């Protein structure tokens, strides 16, 4: 491949220089630009930033580097990735027979810069770390301008001493490159199912781990039969995460939007997947006894640029035995960084990554497997043109009446694969892959932004034959079914004061949907033409309800303050009261016995009514309302024929109540100066008072018995 892509690293370079202290800046300025005088920090930053974009200067410094340092940069440039964790860099320099001082030299030149600073302080030195440190705390990047020049420096480091084989095998195996993309699409599809809650945890009993280990599609055999891949299920989920195909949700991973690389051709997609490998976290080419690897010290991220560089050093037609590569690797790693060095990780990496990704070809020689870079591999290593994998089948889809869809790999493109994965369910991934259309799979596709007719057009466009009638009818039916229930998560509802206003709003296009006589819905609030509205109030639906009613003196009439009312008020009021009038900006309702009894019959309780009124008006349900809400026969009333006796002073009433001659005649004291006596006892009362020289004035009302 040609010039290394920037991907925002130039901007990061400027930001990183901002984080350096003046000591670090002076060190870099001296080593890179030969500036020995003391300049202000800002000036130094500008000088360094300019120097790091100066190709001839970079070339000079590159040529001055030790061979191991040059080789390291060339490996990273060849791989095509700017950022690396420090442990991987340390291992690579170790493989090259050098120490961490190589990295320090590069850092002092500004050729290696920190991606993040865990302690937040400014520094530039490469820390020494142990194998138990968290790798993510120490990541570094090489400026793209440096990597681009590093590729052009003539190699001075000796090539890896592996025996090459010159032969012309009778059968050369090469993957078509679709094994990984197909499995990634299948993994993405699995995460569309909300019941499959995938987490990257280490629990061997978790559903996700079990599914990763056993899923027949993810772990199924490759079309080009070669060696045995390792733990493909884990690798695919890990790779999907590393390449951005799946994204982190609140508590589990989700299918994400298809990355832009899936709109490119297959070689560029494969290149992008290749470069995502250093971000793998749970998969490792070491056998794991069935468990996903923890984020162990290395994850073999350093191995990808190393393997590529070794293979790229071979002549294009030369082969190398996998076992020879493995023997070469044994003893290359010190105990400090790689406690177990059996070498079989190379074989696993070849069959799980390099071969299915079409980076290497494979063949049998003397009963052993030999490999070499393919045309794609050569292109990735910068040693060949971009290969073209022409599609030989222009219409690779065949939809069958049983809803199965045959997908021919020879006609696939990444974007076609992404599109079809959105509407069907993968059943098998052979040379002809099989997918099934179901109501749920098509529904998911529709939910991802497609319409039923778009799905049909897509299938027709890529199908060698006409779509079966039953499939067309089903897709249309499933699409129509989806419109039976519409769920609006964030709609704008407009409340009008009359049904005629609502109709007028619909006619003018102010609202998209008429919800009821007084309510309309707008799908996009930005489209609302406020020039046609006289705004009474606005309110957020999720605001808590507030008092917005006043109850009249009669305890039954309710007046609504529209400026403070909410949507639920309308719903509730129609359940408990009758609308009397809408006048101006006010609405009046009335509690009636019928409306209250209806509410009680439909689930309202007295307690709920009371608390509702307190919430909405600040006061409990009125006494009149409580009275009307009583069920039949709930009260008993008693009418008695009584005289009310009224005196001038409370002491007089108290005296009459206390005096034994009148006490037994008094029924009930109504107030401090009034009390009642039974009609039959009036004469006795008069007589008792006459005995103490007092008279009773009787106001004779018309008593209707």
């Amino acid at each position: 491949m040609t010039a290394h892509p920037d991907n925002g690293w130039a901007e990061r370079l400027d930001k990183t220089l901002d984080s350096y202290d003046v000591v670090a800046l002076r060190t870099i300025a001296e080593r890179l630009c030969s500036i020995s005088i003391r300049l202000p920090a800002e000036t130094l930053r500008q000088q360094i930033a300019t120097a790091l974009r100066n190709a001839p200067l970079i070339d000079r410094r590159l040529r001055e580097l030790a061979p191991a340092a040059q080789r390291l940069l060339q490996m990273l440039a060849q791989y095509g990735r700017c950022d690396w964790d420090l442990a991987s860099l340390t291992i690579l320099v170790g493989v090259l027979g050098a120490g961490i001082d190589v990295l320090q030299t590069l850092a002092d030149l500004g050729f290696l810069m920190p991606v993040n600073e865990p302690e937040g302080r400014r520094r530039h030195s490469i820390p020494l770390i142990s194998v138990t440190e968290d790798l993510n705390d120490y990541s570094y990047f090489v400026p793209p301008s440096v990597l681009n020049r590093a590729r052009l420096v003539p190699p001075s480091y000796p090539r890896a001493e592996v025996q090459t084989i010159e032969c012309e095998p009778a059968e050369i195996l090469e993957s078509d490159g679709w094994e990984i993309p197909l499995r990634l699409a299948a993994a993405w599809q699995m995460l569309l199912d909300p019941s499959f809650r995938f987490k990257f945890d280490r629990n061997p009993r978790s559903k996700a781990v079990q599914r990763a280990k056993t899923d027949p599609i993810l772990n199924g055999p490759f079309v080009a039969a070669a060696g045995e891949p390792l733990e493909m299920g884990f690798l695919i989920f890990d790779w999907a995460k590393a390449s951005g195909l799946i994204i982190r949700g609140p508590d589990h991973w989700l299918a994400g939007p298809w990355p832009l690389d899936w709109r490119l051709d297959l070689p560029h997609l494969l290149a992008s997947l290749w470069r995502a490998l250093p971000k793998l976290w749970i998969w490792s080419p070491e056998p794991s006894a069935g468990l996903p690897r923890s984020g162990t010290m290395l994850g073999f991220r350093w191995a990808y640029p190393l393997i590529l560089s070794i293979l790229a050093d071979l002549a294009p037609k030369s082969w190398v035995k996998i076992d020879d590569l493995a023997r070469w690797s044994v003893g290359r790693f010190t105990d400090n960084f790689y406690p177990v060095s059996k070498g079989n990780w190379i074989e696993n990496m070849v069959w799980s990554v390099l071969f299915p990704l079409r980076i290497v070809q494979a063949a049998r020689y003397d009963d052993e497997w030999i490999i070499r870079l393919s045309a794609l591999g050569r292109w990735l290593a910068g040693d060949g043109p971009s290969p073209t994998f022409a599609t030989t089948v222009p219409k690779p889809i065949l939809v069958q009446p049983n809803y199965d869809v045959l997908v021919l790999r020879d006609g696939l493109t990444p974007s076609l694969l992404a599109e079809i994965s959105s509407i069907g369910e993968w059943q098998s991934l052979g040379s002809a892959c099989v997918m099934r259309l179901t109501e749920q799979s098509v529904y998911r596709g529709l939910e991802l932004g497609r319409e039923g007719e778009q799905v049909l057009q897509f299938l027709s466009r890529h199908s060698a034959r006409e779509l079966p009638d039953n499939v067309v009818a089903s897709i249309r039916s499933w699409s129509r079914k989806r419109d039976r229930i519409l769920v609006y998560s964030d709609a704008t509802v407009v409340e009008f004061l009359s049904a005629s206003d609502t109709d007028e709003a619909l006619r003018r296009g102010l609202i998209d949907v008429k919800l009821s006589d007084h309510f309309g819905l707008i799908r996009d609030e930005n489209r609302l033409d406020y020039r046609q509205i006289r705004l009474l109030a606005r309110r957020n639906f999720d605001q808590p309800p507030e008092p917005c009613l006043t109850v009249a003196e009669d305890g039954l009439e309710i007046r609504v303050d529209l400026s403070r009312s909410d949507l639920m008020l309308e719903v509730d009021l129609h359940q408990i009261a009758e609308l009397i009038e809408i006048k101006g900006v006010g609405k009046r309702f009335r509690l009636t016995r019928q409306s209250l009894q209806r509410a009680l019959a439909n689930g309202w309780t007295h307690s709920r009514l009371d608390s509702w009124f307190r919430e909405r008006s600040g006061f409990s349900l009125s006494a009149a309302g409580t009275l009307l809400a009583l069920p039949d026969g709930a009260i008993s009333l008693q009418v008695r024929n009584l005289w009310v006796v009224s005196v001038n002073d409370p002491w007089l009433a108290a005296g009459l109540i206390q005096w034994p001659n009148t006490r037994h005649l008094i029924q009930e004291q109504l107030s401090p100066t009034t009390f009642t006596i039974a009609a039959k006892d009036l004469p006795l009362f008069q007589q008792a008072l006459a005995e103490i020289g007092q008279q009773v004035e009787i106001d004779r009302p018309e008593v209707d018995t």
Partner: protein
Amino acid sequence: MSQGPGSRLLAKIHHRVSLVLTEDAPLAEELLARKKLSQELLGRLSDRVLLVRPGRVNAVVDELRRMGQTPRVLGSKDCRDDRASR
């Protein structure tokens, strides 16, 4: 209430409303009869419109799908439906 064809209409605006709109009233009744679903609903705005409790749209959509329904979800609040679109 409107004064004439070009006059401004008195209105109140309710923002960020979550609701379910069904094809017909019997379908709304069917949804309300489902206990788990009705717990997530505030009530009926009309015979076909059900108001959803704030913040419970995802729960409503999940329950509808468990019922075998295939609701069309519209709006930006539901990240699950937006996140995988092209």
